């Protein structure tokens, strides 16, 4: 390397991350001096930080690929869109959660600060230009997530699931790191763009590379929650306080997508034949296990956890196609999934009240009688998640299916659609209890204004974007040419 390191530092490219870390420190300091009654300041500052980060990202908008820190950090249009979407998701998650946290006595600074740290990790993964950056991002995100799960200190279940999450997560990080080290040993580089070249030179079929790849794919699959690395998902979703479940079920999925794209599609693109086979197995297993086991669940959080696993199978379908079309489809699917998932968990928050978690499916009984509008919102979310048109989820499924059929994997598309029918059954069951059953109590839905308005918008978004999906699809197409 002949040019001086300092000239390629290019600090400004990472302004959003720098802003975010500064904001986290400030909020952390301010929070220390706040009494419980004025905790809203932390909340407001967190939202402000997100808005600020969005402004910085928009201001520094790039049209092509810009690298910084000697190539270990990249900014590109895809990353920009994913980051902006992540800010929005985190902001919505905070706003959804506020009321519930207050009621449960959990309205503390930690939720917001840890949430922002998770976001920072996500941003680093999204902008990763080298395997080391990827790893830093993954750890930053994961450690904060473990802490978030255990954040309700008095809950034994939450502590147990946090422990499970931590131990399994640590193993996965180890796998990932081990895979990285083997790849590094074979190619002599950690930087993704150089790696892509080096792998071609070494030969993508080289046993050592494939050996390393297996560990990387396993690590990625764990972060996604794909079968057979899915064991943590139901327990963590079920055990964590609902606002944390909502959080875990949304923004980190963006990171998983970015992780797969950066490492597999950018760094190891020439090994597509190898990772395609692995991802096919993971995807089919995820769709089968996720959908079949979800049928047996009576707890909505657990059911949604298994449904997440099956959706991961669909996201992997797009990635394993190994074409720009497929990556776009997977990105579109990820965004769609996050919109639907965050709304579904927010419905649980909406119906929960003092001392009562509305997290069993039967807690939705007769919702149409109590609140026709929110029953309709949940119905739209469920039909969308099931992939029934005209809702958004259908287009996401269509996009990944088209990508898969395009690479001559028609059988895989057929398997996927048949499993989508299996999935329809358990989503329909939720609609069944809301519409066909009579309510067992006469409690009215009395959640606060923010939650109601946001959730209404969330439900409408699923419908309106479902009728006019063009803009969102075009956005994904524009950033991933």
């Amino acid at each position, binding site marked *: 390397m002949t040019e001086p390191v300092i000239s390629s530092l290019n600090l400004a490219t990472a302004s959003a991350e720098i802003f975010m870390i500064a904001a986290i420190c400030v909020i952390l300091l301010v929070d220390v001096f706040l009494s419980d009654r004025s905790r809203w300041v932390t909340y407001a500052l967190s939202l402000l930080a997100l808005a600020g980060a969005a402004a910085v990202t928009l201001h520094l908008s790039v049209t092509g690929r810009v690298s910084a820190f000697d190539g270990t950090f990249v900014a590109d249009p895809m990353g920009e869109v994913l980051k902006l979407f992540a800010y929005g998701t985190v902001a919505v998650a905070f706003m959804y959660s506020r009321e519930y946290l207050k009621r449960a006595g959990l309205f503390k600074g930690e939720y917001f600060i840890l949430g922002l740290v998770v976001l920072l990790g996500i941003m680093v993964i999204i902008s990763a230009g080298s395997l080391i950056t990827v790893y830093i991002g993954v750890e930053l995100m994961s450690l904060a997530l473990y802490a978030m799960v255990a954040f309700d200190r008095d809950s034994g279940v939450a502590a147990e699931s946090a422990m499970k999450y931590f131990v399994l997560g640590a193993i996965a990080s180890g796998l990932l790191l081990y895979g990285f080290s083997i790849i590094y040993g074979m190619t002599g580089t950690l930087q993704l763009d150089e790696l892509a070249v080096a792998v071609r030179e070494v030969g993508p079929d080289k046993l050592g590379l494939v050996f390393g790849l297996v560990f990387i794919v396993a690590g990625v699959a764990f972060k996604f929650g794909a079968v057979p690395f899915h064991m943590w998902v139901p327990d963590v979703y079920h055990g964590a306080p609902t606002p944390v479940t909502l959080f875990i079920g949304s923004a980190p999925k963006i990171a998983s997508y970015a992780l797969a794209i950066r490492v597999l599609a950018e760094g190891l693109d020439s090994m597509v034949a190898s990772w395609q086979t692995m991802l096919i197995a993971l995807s089919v297993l995820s769709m089968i296990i996720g959908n079949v086991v979800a049928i047996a669940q009576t707890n909505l959080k657990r059911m949604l956890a298994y449904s997440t696993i099956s959706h991961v199978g669909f996201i992997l379908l797009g990635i394993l196609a190994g074409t720009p079309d497929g990556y776009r489809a997977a990105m579109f699917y990820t965004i769609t999934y996050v919109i639907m998932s965050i709304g579904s968990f927010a419905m649980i928050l909406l119906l929960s009240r003092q001392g009562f978690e509305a997290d069993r499916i039967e807690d939705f009984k007769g919702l*149409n009688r109590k609140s*026709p509008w929110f029953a*309709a919102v949940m119905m739209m979310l469920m*039909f969308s998640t099931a992939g*029934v*048109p*005209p809702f958004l989820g*259908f*287009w996401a499924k*269509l*996009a990944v*299916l*088209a990508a898969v*059929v*395009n690479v001559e994997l*028609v059988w895989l*598309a*057929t398997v996927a*659609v*048949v499993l*989508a*029918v299996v999935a*329809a*059954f358990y989503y*329909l069951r939720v*609609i*069944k209890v809301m*519409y*066909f059953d009579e309510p067992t109590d006469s409690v009215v839905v009395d959640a606060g204004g923010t939650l109601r308005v946001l959730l209404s918008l969330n439900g409408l978004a699923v419908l309106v974007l479902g009728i*006019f*999906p*063009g803009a969102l*699809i*075009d956005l994904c*197409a524009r950033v991933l040419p």
Partner: protein
Amino acid sequence: MQFTWPILSVLIWLPIVGGVALLVLGDRNIALGRWVALITTAVTFGLSTLLYTNFDATTAGMQFVEKLAWIPAFSAWYSLGVDGIAMPLIILTTFVTPLVVIAAWTVIEKRPAQYFAAFLILEGLMTGVFAATDALLFYVLWEAMLIPMFIIIGVWGGARRVYATLKFFLYTFLGSVLMLVSLIYMYLKTCDAGQCSYAIADFQNLPLALNAQLLIFVAFMVAFAVKVPMWPVHTWLPDAHVEAPTGGSVILAAIMLKMGGYGFLRFSLPITPDASAELDWLIISMSLIAVVYIGFVAIAQKDMKKLIAYSSVAHMGFVTLGSFLAFDLLQVNGDVRGAAMGIDGAMVQMISHGLISGALFFCVGVLYDRVHSREIAAYGGVINTMPIFGAFAVLFAMANSGLPATSGFVGEFLVILASFRADFWYAFLAAVTLILGAAYTLWLVKRVIFGAVANDNVAAMTDLNGREFFVLGILAVAVLLLGVWPAPLLDVMRPTVEHLVQQITVSKL
């Protein structure tokens, strides 16, 4: 004559907007809600008649065409248009829906606003299915349509409604997802050819190898056969019919089943002609089994709705039989006229069955509202207390068994005639329906309508009120009119059917 305003869009969106308005209005002022529903559907019907009066019956092309960019990334267009096959089905849809609204006027007590809204939204979606000329738009509407029906059966249905509606939804959903994969496959084929498109017309012109055609044909067959429904995938229908509220049964029988037949004519025949020619024996045998075997099954039923449901399966067998006879006729002796006759018969049978089965379900609804039982054994001698109703019921029963001068005769006769040209045994088996149909319908009439008053419930029954009289009267007029004078229907279809026959004679290999 074409219009300067988008008539098809209005026919689709007006009921949907009306439905949403009803949902917003809620049950607060249901008297107003009912009128909103009635006026919306009546206006929609009125506008749809303009399709008929302004239809150009000299061309097979799409008319009243609309085309707007929808999803450029998928090359999907919001494109609508009707030809001689779609137009009558749209009018059937807009004709039956107001009758459903009138029939439900004060009968539905549980959340009536949502009930009417569901039917209005359903109407718009169903019209869209028949009007869509873009396969993706077609698919979206085809699936979306399941949602209101799922709710209708599940909320306002009978005791086993949850089972029935889940079965209905999952059965039809499973059928159609395979169709989606075929659509995607063909879309990508059009991309290979240079111009990505989901337009049905482009699919029809797309050259396809026989293997691909066979797979596509099977995928389509599953989707449409479930919808028709054909034996052996008909088992959802009796359950759905029995549990659905009267309006749901009517729409299901009168219109939703027709979508299967429409799908065969619009997709299977012209898109996969070679595969259809290869596998026509399969469809023909399934149809004949439906006609004969399901006819026997119908005789054995104890539940009126179930009996009519099985009779629907048998009658829809004629639709699929008529559609696929064409291949047999063309292969054996290039009989173009016979092929057109079969398809004509299938179309007339669809419209006619829509009217007759709808009317029969209304009749059962009338009885059910009074006695709250669908069991045949719960009735007997209804004619003594309800003479006017008895007259209607006998008329529709006769029409159902294919009595000449009713619409039921025309379609069946055309199909039987066409099957004679193909094979004597086809015609023989198809004609068995005339005996079986008469057997199960007339026996039903004998047990329910005639005889001595069976019990106190029947003795206490009151005859039709004005609302019910109106609904059944209009349907009776339509059934008779189509029976004695089917020419207006046949005339508008002729160029389209001829074009279709010509399309399927050209191999796509």
